[in-house]
């Protein structure tokens, strides 16, 4: 018998790699394009989130409403019903990334693939059950583990900031070696990318990302095999698809190469052991087969193939865990009393609804022109880890910007025009008179007032008398806040010359989205009130 690898499948495999590269490229370009585009409104840079049926499903379940925006997810399901998990093998950018690193680790012998008989690939189905069941009880944890959220968040808060640091050092070196014009080109190129480079949890999110990439040294496409809830969902949907693996018994020499090198442990050999739910149609098996014995003929009706072999006991157990997680996630004071630091982006829904919708993807963190939007850690309780909040010491809410409201893929931040956004309060500014330069030392300053973007300004002046430590009495203008005007944008805090802990700062109280996080009695003003 002639021993020859299949030319056809090797071409298909090359095509698949090209298409994976293309889709990763699209993901990356959309990521980079998620910044101020030069005008007030930005195009649909968040579109690929809407192709994710798991995000669609959990958000729909947790929020109890259908999302038209998620319509493309139906196409993903339809394609999977017909062709199996091609979305995982050909399109998913995170899959492409894991596969690339698996390839690198194999080439460098850090990963030595072997034939595996275990059934650990079922983990991801239990994870999916956990996520779906907790969503039924309004806890939306999918954002932690959804592949698109995971990838996007990791790139925004970890990979890009790290890369920009490297880029800045490189540019600095160019100037050091007097290559000024190249340095200028580099610097302007970088400014044009408009990357937010400062993130409170960039290190941790980046470390988790690197850890998951490194897990590819133990198993090829570790994430896709064991963790990915989207892979699990598509695996369940792929059961009836028309592309079935077929091994020609006359040609097969039972070498086992196909099973060893299968990217996702779909067990191509023996034929009856092949699991369509695990197969991502990368066609590595057919391309690697030394005798061209493996093919994927399209058949409309075929004998019922093995479905996902889930243990009922574990399924019930993981569902119960998903249920039990709900109270555990909510042992936190955040529902009793608002956190002063938890300043949500403008347009954010009331906290409970916000948490049901936010998928922690990081779109808003990427698009924010001042880098103000940061992933929360403890401020919003365990449920709110990595949800967006504004840190005014890093950035502030730019007055004429509503970009974060436009890119939110789930509407956790409601889409707003700039005029609508400027009607909202995200918090309230306070002057710390113990630290404020005019209040404390009697010196002129007014930087906060200068930067206050509203008209008339929310920061007004009092002419005060201050006795300095040396006894000298001064009469500077000192800032006070006009609550009716203050939107909580935080530029005053950001620009305050008292560097370490600004003498003017914003807390969340008074935010428009909350009924409870208020302080002043809101009664109808009488006619006589001319204020």
């Amino acid at each position, binding site marked *: 018998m002639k021993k020859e690898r299949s030319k056809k499948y090797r071409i298909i495999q090359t095509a698949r790699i090209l298409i994976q590269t293309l889709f990763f490229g699209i993901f990356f370009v959309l990521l980079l394009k998620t910044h101020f585009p030069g005008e007030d409104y930005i195009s649909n840079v968040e579109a690929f989130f809407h192709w994710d049926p798991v995000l669609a499903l959990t958000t729909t379940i947790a929020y109890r409403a259908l999302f038209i925006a998620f319509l493309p997810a139906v196409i993903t399901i339809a394609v999977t019903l017909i062709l199996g998990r091609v979305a995982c093998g050909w399109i998913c950018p995170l899959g492409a990334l894991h596969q690339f690193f698996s390839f690198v680790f194999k080439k460098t012998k850090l990963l030595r693939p072997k034939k595996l008989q275990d059934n650990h690939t079922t983990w991801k189905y239990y994870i999916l059950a956990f996520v779906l069941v907790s969503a039924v009880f309004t806890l939306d944890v999918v954002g932690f583990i959804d592949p698109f959220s995971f990838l996007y968040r990791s790139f925004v808060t970890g990979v890009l900031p790290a890369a920009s640091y490297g880029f800045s050092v490189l540019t600095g070196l160019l100037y050091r070696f007097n290559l000024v014009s190249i340095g200028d080109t580099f610097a302007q190129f970088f400014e044009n990318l408009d990357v937010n480079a400062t993130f409170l949890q960039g290190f941790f999110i980046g470390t988790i990302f690197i850890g998951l990439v490194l897990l590819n040294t133990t198993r090829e496409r570790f994430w896709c095999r064991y963790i990915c809830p989207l892979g699990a969902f598509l695996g369940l949907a792929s059961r009836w698809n028309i592309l079935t693996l077929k091994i020609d018994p006359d040609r097969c020499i039972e070498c086992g190469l196909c099973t060893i090198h299968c990217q996702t442990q779909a067990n191509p050999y023996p034929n009856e052991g092949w699991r369509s739910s695990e197969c991502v149609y990368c066609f590595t098996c057919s391309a690697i087969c030394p005798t061209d014995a493996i093919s994927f003929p399209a058949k409309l009706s075929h004998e019922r193939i093995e479905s996902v072999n889930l243990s009922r006991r574990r399924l019930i157990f993981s569902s119960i865990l998903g249920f039990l997680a709900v109270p555990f996630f909510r042992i936190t004071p955040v529902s009793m009393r608002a956190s002063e630091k938890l300043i949500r982006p403008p347009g954010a829904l009331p906290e409970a609804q916000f948490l049901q919708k936010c998928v922690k993807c990081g779109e808003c963190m990427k698009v924010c022109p001042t880098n103000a939007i940061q992933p929360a850690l403890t401020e919003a309780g365990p449920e709110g880890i990595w949800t967006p909040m504004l840190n005014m010491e890093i950035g502030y809410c730019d007055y004429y910007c509503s970009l974060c409201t436009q890119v939110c893929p789930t509407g956790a931040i409601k889409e707003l025009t700039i005029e609508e956004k400027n009607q909202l309060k995200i918090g309230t500014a306070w002057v710390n008179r113990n630290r404020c330069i005019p209040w404390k030392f009697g010196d002129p300053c007014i930087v906060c007032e200068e*930067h206050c973007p509203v008209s*008339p300004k929310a920061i007004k002046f009092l002419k005060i008398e201050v006795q300095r430590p040396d006894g000298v009495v001064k009469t500077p203008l000192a800032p006070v806040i006009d609550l009716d005007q203050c939107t909580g944008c935080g530029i005053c805090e950001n620009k305050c010359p008292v560097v370490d802990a600004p003498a003017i700062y914003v807390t969340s109280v008074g935010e428009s989205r909350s009924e409870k996080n208020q302080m002043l009695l809101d009664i109808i003003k009488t006619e006589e009130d001319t204020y």
Partner: protein
Amino acid sequence: MAVGGALLHLPSRLFPQTKAYPDLALIQGDSPSRITKEAVATLGGIKRFISKGDLVIIKPNIGWDRTPEQAACTNPEVVKALVELCKDADAKEVIVLDNTINPARRTYARSGIAKAAKEAGAKVPYPNPHHVKKMAINGEWIKEWDVYTDFVEADKIINVPIAKTHSLSRLTMGLKNWLGAIDGPRNQLHQALDFAMIDLANFFKPTLTILDAYRILVRNGPQGGRLSDAELHKTVVAGVDYVAVDAIGATFFGIKPEELRYLDLASQKGVGRIDLEKLNIEKRTV
């Protein structure tokens, strides 16, 4: 006068025109571009200031994320007219730059200045942190500060501020505009703002100052916000004496120059003149 006298002894071919130019040109009219060009022409034309092959840097106020109608940033057409003039004078390169307060990407775009200046052939780079260098200011109050070297390396500097109110210096025009050419903790300069403005202006020493008063910001400065905060004034002032330019600018707000502490100080120090009645001011409407 002594300088003028010395010049007379030099060969006349070196100085073919010995015509006396006005100290200030105050031009009014409907077109920001036209009044700008007319103002420069009144002072003797761009070639009096810009020579062939010069590297010119233009410093508008692009500080705020505001549109031209809000009059928080210099009028883009004024900037564009200046770039065109410099190009006409065969400047080697014209750079328009400001260290903005809101993110440069936003202010450059929404002020309309980046687009207008690029159309006229200028380079409009974002402020480059690698160009920041601590330099000796050698002022009376500021000894050294972080400066964008672009302004130091240029052959000629043109300052193009817009006239606005300000809570601390009362008005912000040409001298205050230099806070956009520096980096470092410039928000601390407010503790001695009047002095800082003078030192910085003396350090950068613009070749020419063009005050954009096409729209002036009369309330809620230096950002404004509501369109009613701005007033249409349809004026441009040009001058070499940057103190005198600010002095005449003050009158647009009904303020006498000597009422502004920084102008009073600058005049006492002999930096420039604020005695408007004695200055040769050419006013015209085009």
